[in-house]
């Protein structure tokens, strides 16, 4: 039985967090769950304390990438075999976790992404977002030769090796598509499985329409750049600790 950690990034998720964690722990009592509170301004932290959740509370707002990386560092130091990213807003259904875990546990893949575009069921997001995701799919195909239908999906499982890699190297601003490219570039195997996503239960997306143009330009340049970057050595640890 692999040791599994569920990472839930949370920024102002007071309305949905308890529901997400409750459905998670009722379905998967053996998995540990770590809430990554990125200096929320609402009651997210006091909800974590009151319910006795395992959580990291950032003293300053780090942004989604850096917050996530702290989760991978926790997974690395505490010897987890598999880390799973899952949103705190209720978009991701924990009943699909088995699909994400199986290929990682059997060594078939280092990263398994839950994609809503394989069976095209459930919430399919807005047209403009789908266009952006399709553009990333094209870009990844050109740069890495693999088809990833939903590179922006934050519902993904990672192997021990990838946990070590991410705890040393993880994109900071809009990390999901960049993490896919840098993983592929560094020789990790990525696989997608079909999942059904729901519309977010509460809160607002980290990407407002105003920022979407900036987002597309920045992520595109970052993705092109990650191809030009030198490859990292595996199992590199920034803090110089033995892994």
């Amino acid at each position, binding site marked *: 039985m692999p040791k599994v950690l569920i990472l839930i990034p949370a920024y102002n998720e007071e309305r949905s967090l308890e529901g997400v964690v409750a459905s998670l722990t009722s379905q998967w009592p053996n998995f540990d769950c770590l809430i990554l509170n990125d200096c929320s301004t609402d009651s997210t932290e006091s909800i974590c304390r009151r319910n006795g959740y395992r959580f990291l509370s950032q*003293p*300053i707002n780090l942004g989604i990438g850096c917050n996530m990386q702290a989760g991978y560092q926790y997974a690395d130091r505490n010897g987890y075999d598999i880390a799973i990213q899952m949103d705190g807003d209720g978009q991701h259904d924990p009943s699909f976790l088995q699909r994400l875990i199986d290929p990682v546990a059997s060594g078939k893949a280092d990263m398994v992404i839950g994609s809503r575009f394989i069976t095209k069921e459930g919430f399919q997001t807005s047209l403009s977002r789908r266009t952006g995701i399709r553009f990333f799919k094209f870009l990844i195909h050109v740069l890495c030769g693999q088809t990833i239908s939903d590179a922006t999906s934050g519902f993904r499982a990672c192997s021990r090796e990838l946990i070590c890699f991410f705890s040393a190297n993880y994109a*900071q*601003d809009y990390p999901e598509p960049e993490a896919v490219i840098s993983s592929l570039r560094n020789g990790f195997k990525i696989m997608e499985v079909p999942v059904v996503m729901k519309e977010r239960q509460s809160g607002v997306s980290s990407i407002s329409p105003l920022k979407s143009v900036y987002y597309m*330009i*920045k992520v595109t*340049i*970052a993705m092109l*750049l990650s191809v*030009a*970057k*030198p490859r990292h050595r595996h199992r590199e640890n920034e803090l110089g600790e033995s892994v």
Partner: protein
Amino acid sequence: MNLQLKLFLVAFVILLGVIMFHMLRKERLELKYTLLWLMALIVTAVVVVAPQIVFQIATWVGIINPVNLVFFVEGAFVIAILLSVTAIVSGLNRKIRRLAQELALLDERIRKMEQVPRATDQTN
């Protein structure tokens, strides 16, 4: 703008572009803070290569020699970049203060926790 000056400016823009690309590749620059530089580079390149595109704007603001427009555009970008750097430094300063405070609070908590077992030792 004569050809000699145009070639010199093009060479300058290319050199700057290559240096920036190299620094980005080596992760000595963070992309987030470099986007404004990239934009400055692209706009400057356009103004240098095809000043006729922006010449109309130049006459509107009273610039007679198009090369001055190139310098004005560069100057405007330098001001914008400096302003953004000041904003970034201010943000970083705020974050460092917050981190230092957090560290002091944690230090106090750890010292308090370390004292508890010692206090019980003394009573025994």
